[in-house]
């Protein structure tokens, strides 16, 4: 029987490590001006009629601190491929994201860490009468997490998501939108679980289809608590997904095709965690991410850019990772 402590450790990983790899350029209501950026809600993509393909390499490192001491060196390396096609009023977007993590330590302490991560996404969206867009997407996440416990072990977690969303152009430069994602999770330690995330946002976008644009988007995602008890005869543990709220803000400023982007995301997850190494407890965890990027975005031709990102996660222990990205793409 898997012990409850191990399951408690894994609660956070569902969110933490998807946030660690996600790009933050706020594509809930409107598309990011950063072409390499990954969409969040499919209907947002229809406001861009660019055909593009691109890739990104990322590399980062950081530390885990527990009780004031640096206990782990954290390293991450990965890549992303993104495609966006616009065919009439139909837009198709897809991306593949993968990352490998390397955690160096002399001794293990309570608290899990990730081994690897992969994500795929395909979306279809339609433009209506010029003021409304709708979209649907398939979203898959898979990761392997090393759970520190009495019997240290790798845990496999997979999530499959179905997303539906819409956006409305309220005024010439004001957009509203929202959507839901139904998530099904399988876990090598616990029974299957599922829940529905709800996302809404607002965006202001000026200078569309020109080489000088300004865009601000704010959005929030609510993820509810979800529990699944074991049935008689199950060899796995009960499943538990903690509730969380994620706030995002994204600012894009493009001047003569030179794009500066900044994004911030904050996530609070309600979860009781007691660290057996220190005896300390918390009732929630907090994730904070900041990312800035610079990119050349022509009307057609080569895209070139780079980004810098800081990631922080705090519960009983604290992770901080800085990473750097370079990206290359093409608009056709």
């Amino acid at each position, binding site marked *: 029987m898997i012990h409850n402590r191990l399951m408690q450790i894994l609660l956070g990983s569902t969110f933490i490590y998807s946030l660690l790899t996600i790009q933050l350029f706020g594509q809930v209501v409107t598309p990011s001006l950063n072409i390499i950026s990954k969409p969040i809600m499919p209907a947002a993509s229809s406001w861009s009629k660019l055909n593009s393909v691109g890739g990104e*390499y990322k*590399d980062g*490192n950081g530390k885990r601190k527990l009780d004031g001491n640096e206990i782990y*060196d954290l*390293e991450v390396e990965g890549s992303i491929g993104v495609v966006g096609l616009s065919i009439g009023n139909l837009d198709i977007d897809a991306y593949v994201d993968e990352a490998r993590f390397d955690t*160096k330590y002399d001794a293990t302490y309570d608290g899990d860490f990730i081994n690897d991560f992969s994500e795929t996404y395909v979306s279809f969206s339609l433009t209506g009468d010029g003021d409304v867009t709708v979209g649907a997407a398939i979203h898959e996440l898979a990761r392997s997490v090393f759970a520190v416990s009495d019997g240290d072990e790798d845990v496999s977690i997979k999530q499959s998501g179905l997303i539906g969303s819409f956006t409305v152009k309220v005024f010439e430069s004001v957009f509203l939108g929202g959507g839901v994602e139904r998530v099904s999770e399988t876990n090598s330690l616990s029974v299957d679980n599922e829940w529905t995330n709800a996302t809404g946002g607002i965006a202001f976008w000026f200078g569309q289809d020109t*080489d000088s644009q300004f865009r601000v988007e704010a959005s929030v995602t609510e993820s509810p608590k979800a529990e699944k008890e074991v049935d008689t005869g199950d060899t796995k543990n009960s499943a538990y997904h903690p509730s969380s709220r994620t706030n995002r803000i994204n600012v894009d400023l493009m*001047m*003569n*095709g*030179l794009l500066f982007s900044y994004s911030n995301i904050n996530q609070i997850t309600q979860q009781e965690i007691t660290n057996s190494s220190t005896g300390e407890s918390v009732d929630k965890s907090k994730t904070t991410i900041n990312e800035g990027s*610079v*990119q*050349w975005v*022509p009307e057609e031709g*080569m895209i*070139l*850019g*780079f*980004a*810098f990102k800081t990631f922080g996660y705090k519960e009983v222990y604290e992770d901080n990772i*800085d990473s*750097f990205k*370079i990206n*290359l793409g093409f608009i056709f």
Partner: protein
Amino acid sequence: MKNILIFATLLIFSSINGVSAQVVTPSLDPTNPVEIAAAASWRFGSTIGGGGKWGTQKSDGDQLDSSTQSDLSDMAFVNSSYIFAYQPTTVTFEISGVVNETDYQWDGSDSTSDSLTEYEKNETNLKLAIRGNNQVSVGIEFQSENYKDASTDSKLTAYGGSFGMRFLDSIFISGGLNRKTLKADEFESDLKWQEVIGGVAFQFGSPDQNMFKIEGAIKIEDKAKVNLSNSALYYYRPKITTTQGSIETILGGYLLSYRYRKILFEAIDDIALDRDREETRNRIGLGYRPTVLTMVLYGETRIEMEDSNKYETQYLGFNVSFSFM
């Protein structure tokens, strides 16, 4: 402690032999590579060329403060460099490097323990930049550097991104980020740190007529540390701040240049009694640049100050290149 000293030497020399450091726009001597990729977009066409550099350092009683009379090192130093920059349209590709840089150091606190230390270094820089509307530029870059001496074999890799903007035809600004990784057998894990660069330049004229350029820039490299293998010791890399300014002009086909650079190595908090070190470099260049051919001779003085100790090194170098608009 020995390893710490070895690697301190390694990194200091990485800095000493840095490229000609044009952060915002390219040097009027096209043989000099740009320091950040975005600056390559402002090149005036394609270039192929190379150069050489040699120098000597003596740290004897004449160059040390009178309170410190011990001989620290004598040094002879030589390298050669190459550059190929290709600018077919708005895209610029630049590859440059240093080949077989070799340094001979006679190191020892007294004549009985003097020894010959030799290192070899090879460096390759790849840069890709794109210019938009003749007003903005974005670039990415990769650097690889191998260093080897009797006790150390290490590899430095770096990649980064940068941007540049042009205002009123003659005013340029730029900024960039680089991420660096140093691998060495002596390290328990890789040493990683970040570098931030920014600058501003004013540039008038055209290289085939008369031209004037002035540039100021700053580069800040984070401090970093890593465990040494099988040891409780750390290797520390200090925070390094480089400020520099340069003036260049082409008048009647003759090229004149002056560059000032100050490098501050901040004391490491974890090391008792460690102190700031400061290095200043002054370089002058005199050359001839008609339409295609460019030839420039450089003379440079490097002065390193550590407490009251002063070390002075003299360098001579030359560049030759052919440019095609």
